[in-house]
């Protein structure tokens, strides 16, 4: 029983390695144009950015780095 379990584990490992190995893909340097596209920017929507930073500094009590002030009281 132990031997069968070992064999199954070995084959499962091999199948997993092959599956993950085949799934590996490298983005070539000349293909990175899509990553620098405007639609990939997190700050492409100005209104959403302002809203997000407001929520973050209110909820997380975080100040600095976002250009907004406040103590995290959630009152502004």
């Amino acid at each position, binding site marked *: 029983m132990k031997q069968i379990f*070992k*064999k199954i*584990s*070995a084959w499962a*490992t*091999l199948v997993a*390695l*092959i599956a993950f*190995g085949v799934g590996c893909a490298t983005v*070539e*340097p*000349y*293909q*990175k*144009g*899509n990553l*620098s*596209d405007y639609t990939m920017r997190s700050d492409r929507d100005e209104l959403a950015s302002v809203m997000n930073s407001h929520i973050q500094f209110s909820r997380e009590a975080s100040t600095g780095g976002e250009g907004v002030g406040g103590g995290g009281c959630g009152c502004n």
Partner: protein
Amino acid sequence: MKIWLKISLTAIAALSCVSLVQAEGWGSGTELPSTLEGFALEGEVPEMEGKVTLVDFWASWCAPCKAAFPEMEKLYQNFKDEGFQIVAVSVDQKANQMQRFLDKQKPSFATPHDAGQQLVKAAEISVMPSSFLVDRKGVIRFAHEGWHGKESAENLTHQIQGLLAE
């Protein structure tokens, strides 16, 4: 040794071999064909035979690539009468973005578009920009990765002068 460990090590070794075999591209000593027309480039592609040629891979989304253009223009103007030329191959996937940059920059040298990215795939570059200095016999003599401003310009000047003198 446990069987699963043996199998894992064999598989890892096999995968490593595959990645090593794939790591072949242009480099110092690679002989290029006399013309690059076989790679379906769009736009003017000058003959390379008998000329010292700088083959540069660039894209409009790549800031260092664009920073190199004024210096490449200077190099071209300085050495074009002695038999030097530049083939600046754009690997842009969006032709309008490439054209917008070219309209602004107006380079005097050839700027073909590798729309299908066939040539750049054959060159197997690992950094943008990458450029290759080819001698009059069509052999790559120097490979450059990235653009390091004045240092790159000085290196290129020195190397171009050397190849033109041969």
